[in-house]
Every structure is written in structure tokens, then in C-alpha cells.
């Protein structure tokens, strides 16, 4: 099942209109677009650039610089796994490999059925409870492969 690349132009227009007057507006605008749409559609770049009186290259440069901004729509569930040192010391790499197989997605990618997007993160500030993951926005600590399976078992593959 291919991901749906259509996007809500009206939502982006409204976000830009509400935030464009503050100083350094581009980051808050992109942040809000990402948070509301789940990604920053490449087709929204000219619109944002025009409204902020920036070049398309400048806006594209910012979008592509920051890891948070997705260039593709995410799957229905988003799994983020910390791969930084503290979590590595507690088995994060084995957990990451387990998650890759379990979700059927590579890091930075989405499973073919669109169920899971898998992302690597580098520190969630949960280092005292390593290894840490975020599943659909919820931070979970002291994760094990078994608990991971439990946490995603209720999530739909459809």
C-alpha cells in the first residue's frame, strides 16, 4: 500500500498566516506544519517561502537540515528508538535490530503496509531508564524486546 502524499494546503496557509509575523518565524512554522501534518510536504516549501519573502532554497535548506522534519508522510504508528551511548550500554542496538524486524521497516523508513515508521533518535533524556523508546509520542523506559512486542501488539497493522 503506497503512502498517501496528498496534503492539506489550507492548513499550511493558516499556520503560516498565524505565525509569519514573529521574528525567526520559519522554525515555528515548520515545527507546526510537521506537528499538525506529520511531515513537511516538499510542495509546501514554495508557499512558505513566498509568504516569508525567502527563497525556496533557503526554506528547503532549513527543512533538510533538521532531523525532525519528515519529507515523506509517516506510517500510522511512529516508533523512535534511542541509539545513543547510555542506551547502547543497556542493549539498545539489539533492541533496534529487534524493532527493525518486528516493524518491518528500516530506520528512517516505513513498512510496506504503512503501519510503522521507524526512526533513530539520539538521546531522549531518559538515560537513567535506558534503553528508551517513544511509541506514538509516549516515552517508555527500561525497554526489552519482550516489552517492545507487548507495547506494539495493540497497534494495528492495518
Amino acid at each position: 500500500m503506497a503512502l498517501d502524499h496528498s496534503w492539506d494546503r489550507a492548513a499550511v496557509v493558516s499556520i503560516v498566516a498565524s505565525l509569519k509575523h514573529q521574528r525567526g518565524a520559519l522554525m515555528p512554522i515548520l515545527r507546526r506544519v510537521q506537528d499538525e501534518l506529520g511531515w513537511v510536504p516538499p510542495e509546501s516549501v514554495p508557499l512558505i517561502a513566498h509568504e516569508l519573502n525567502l527563497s525556496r532554497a533557503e526554506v528547503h535548506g532549513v527543512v533538510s537540515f533538521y532531523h525532525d522534519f519528515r519529507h515523506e508522510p509517516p506510517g500510522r504508528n511512529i516508533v523512535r528508538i534511542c541509539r545513543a551511548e547510555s542506551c547502547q550500554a543497556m542493549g539498545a542496538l539489539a533492541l533496534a535490530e529487534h524493532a527493525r524486524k518486528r516493524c518491518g521497516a528500516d530506520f528512517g523508513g516505513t513498512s510496506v503496509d504503512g503501519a510503522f515508521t521507524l526512526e533513530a533518535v539520539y538521546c531522549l533524556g531518559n538515560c537513567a531508564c535506558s534503553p528508551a523508546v517513544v511509541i506514538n509520542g509516549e516515552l517508555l523506559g527500561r525497554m526489552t524486546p519482550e516489552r517492545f512486542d507487548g507495547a506494539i501488539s495493540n497497534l494495528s497493522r492495518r
Partner: protein
Amino acid sequence: MSGQSIAVYVPRDSSSLSLGAEEVADAIAREAGSRGADIELIRNGSRGMYWLEPMVEVTAARGRVAYGPVTVADVQSLFNAGLLEGADHKLALGLTDEIPYLKRQSRLTFARVGIIDPVSLHDYIAHGGYRGLATAIAMSGAEIVQEVTASNLRGRGGAAFPAGIKWKTTLDQNSPQKYVVCNADEGDSGTFSDRMIMEGDPFVLIEGMTIAGLAVGASEGYIYLRSEYPHALRTLTQAIEAATRAGYLGADVAGSGKPFRLEIRLGAGAYICGEETAMLESLEGKRGVIRFKPPLPAIAGLFGQPTVVNNVITLSSIPAIIADGGKAYNEHGVGRSRGTIPLQLAGNIKRPGLFELPFGLTLRALIEDFGGGTASGRPLRAVQVGGPLGAYFPDSMLDLPIDYEAIAGAGGLLGHGGVVVFDETADLAQMARYAMEFCALESCGKCTPCRIGSTRGVEVIDRIIANRERGDNVELLRDLCETMTAGSLCALGGLTPLPVMSALKYFPEDFGLSTAKGASME
């Protein structure tokens, strides 16, 4: 709230939530409801003893009593045992203040964290909050800066630059618009002190920034918060609203006649934005590419204006310094490292958490006495001090005192105070490779040695591991690290060689080298 109700505390800090604190709080509310018990459920910050989280506290006649780690399954038996009277139970930890790992700390910056309701301005003031601001309002800007200078407080973000000097530079600028920017882009693995303050006592950061504003003549402040901290965003937002409503922020700060406004801006997952000039670029809505210095941000920072940039812990240390005097703060610590530092113990450790201590304790005392050794029970192999740009130390170096100069003298850095422990299963050649990989991933691209050298570094380490012309490639790696150190503008490219070269020096066998050969390599 009725005076009869019993206060029950369940942390709302994100690590506690990641261990099920929300479910525990719900279960306690349900159980109390079904028994007709009148409780006041307070969602506090964490005390930082994460091996005991979710830790529930109850205000009993003899003081606050702790239980932990509590799961939903324990709640009924806790009530049966007499939780609300502070009775004994297999999870009982006694009086919270008497728990040795807490009692042995010197909590100045974290004085209120875990004790109060973080978003209650009333609690904050009742526990000594806004004393610093009241003192500061009666002082001139130069007097406030003098007090900070006398405290010998150094930047807790990692660079350890004296805060007083930074503030004086901004104070001395003649500009109608100045800024205070808080660096809350806590990206180092193994660190979470900024998060704990923002989630556990956000008003102390707000007060510290307000005092900084009064000191240097800045009317606006920004908190650059990493996007990975949604709970910190929530508590900070609530606290800023409460402080604004009460007149502690706004056009007339606490009747001083001076304005100070505060805004939160979110990052977007770029480690480099923890570097102060990259952060300023990001705040201006640009790519987080670092700037040349000079000009210093204190002279030409945000939007080209004089800007004080400090880390969360630095700014949160200010209220106590102004309230109790710089001298009192300076009495803690050793050598040129004065005051206290919130040390964060993470990785493979039995008792992970945050311990605010005066400088001078040894790494071994921290790891063994506070941390209890490895979580796995296997022998300790390596300790990374100071985040991803810090050195890996072997067990034989753990008698180093925790002090900026001592750690730097041993070829490492104390950084933001994170200590990550690895047991004997760790492969330090892989960790060195990871350091290069991380640098490649996070490089802003401005300096060639960092942008390209990090990718070459991964390849060279791969060849060493695969035993392809190992000797030559070790030489090449050393040369590459020298180039990165000398040819990078900021700490990312400049310090990535620290974890790499320390791994090679102290753990040569992981690179397939004989111990003697590795040890001879400086």
C-alpha cells in the same frame, strides 16, 4: 482543598512516566476513592533516584515517607498496609529525606525538585522561591553581576566559562535591545539534569532568567528547548503563564518597573543546536550552522544584539546565588570548580540517577557508592564522562576527582556532568566508530574536517577493525583526529577525537592491537 486530606505524591517527570507513573497515580486515585479516603494527589518532579521510580510519597505525621518502585499491582497492598499513615510495607523506604543517596547530596540548584508541585507558584514561593529576584530588584545590574562573579559559577552546559564574565560583557554593551537566551537543547547522552529542572521546578529557571535580564538590561528572553522534551514544554509553558499572571514576568517585573518577557522556541532534533551560535541561528529561523567567534554572542548575539547565553542549570543556579550570596555558593567545591554540580549517572549502572554534589568527589565514589556498580553485575569496563564528546576512561582512572581541571588534565572533559557506565561486554572500537558516525550525522557542515573527516573516520576505524593495513590505518586515524581537533570551529568536530583517541589509548585490544602498543599511543 480540605485541610484534612492526605498529600500523596506521584512524580510527573517524563522518566517516571516512562516507567508507568501515570498508571500508578490513576490506581492510587481509584483505590483512595473506593475506600473513601480523602487524598490530595500531587504530581511532583522526580527526586532523581530513578531505580526507585515510580516513587510514591505520603505526608505522614513523622514527615514525608517514600515507597518504591511502585507498580499498579502494588497499590492495593500498599493501601492495605496503611500507605496513608506512612506504615511499613515491603516497598517502604522510610523518610524520604533520610534515604542515604538523597541525604548525602548538597541540593542547592535542585533544592525544590521532587518536593513541590512544579507548576504551583504558591509552592515555589513557600519553599524559598523568588527570594533571589526580590534581592536582585534592590541591586544595580553591576552589583548583581558582581555577586555572580563572586560565586565563581561556571557554565554548566559543558564549556565551563565563568558566568560573571559573560554577563559583564553584555552589561557593558550600550544597546537598546539585549537578550537572555537559555540553552535547553540538552543533547548529550547520559544527561537529563536540564530536563529534571524544567519538569520539576520550572520557576527556578524563569527566576534565574529574569535576574539575568535585570542584571544585563535585557527585556526579552528565549528558552531554546529541544523537541524531545514535550513534558518539559508543558510544565514550562504552565509556569510562564502563572508567572506572567502574577506579575513576575511582563511589563513590570515584580514591581521593579522593568520589563522582562519570556518565550519558548522548540528545536527540531539537531544536536549541533546545543552549540550556542548554531542555536542563535536556529532561533533566527535558519539552519543551525555555527558562527565564527568573534564577535561573541555577549556582544553581537541573537538578531545581532548583545545576548547572554547560558545553560538551564547555570541559570537555575542563579536564584540561590543572589538570595544567599555568591560567597556561600563559592564555599562548595574544590580548586577552580566552585559550587555544586548535578551529576547524572546513566548507562549500565545499578542505581542510575541525578546526584547534586560539591565538586571534588571521585568518579569511583560516584559510580560505586552512589551508583552501586553495574546493573548487569558484570565488571565495569569503561566510563564515558561528559557526553558524546567526552573521553572513555578505564577502571584504573576512576580515582580522578570530579573537577573541570582534573578531568581535562586527564585528557577528558566534565561537560554537562553526564557519566555513562559500560560493563565488560562493551566494544570500545565500536564506540569509537559510533563517535565518528554521530559526528557525521550531526555535523552542521561548516568545517571540512568535521563534515568529511567524520565520515572518513568511520571508514578508517572499519578498516582497523577488519585488520586491513591496521598499523597504517591507526596512524591515519591519529592524523585525522589531529586535523579535526585543530581544524574545527566548534566542539563537535573539535572534540569527537576525544572519545575516539581515548578508546584507542585505553582499550587497544578492542582494535586488535596489543596492549603495549596501544598504551604507547598518546
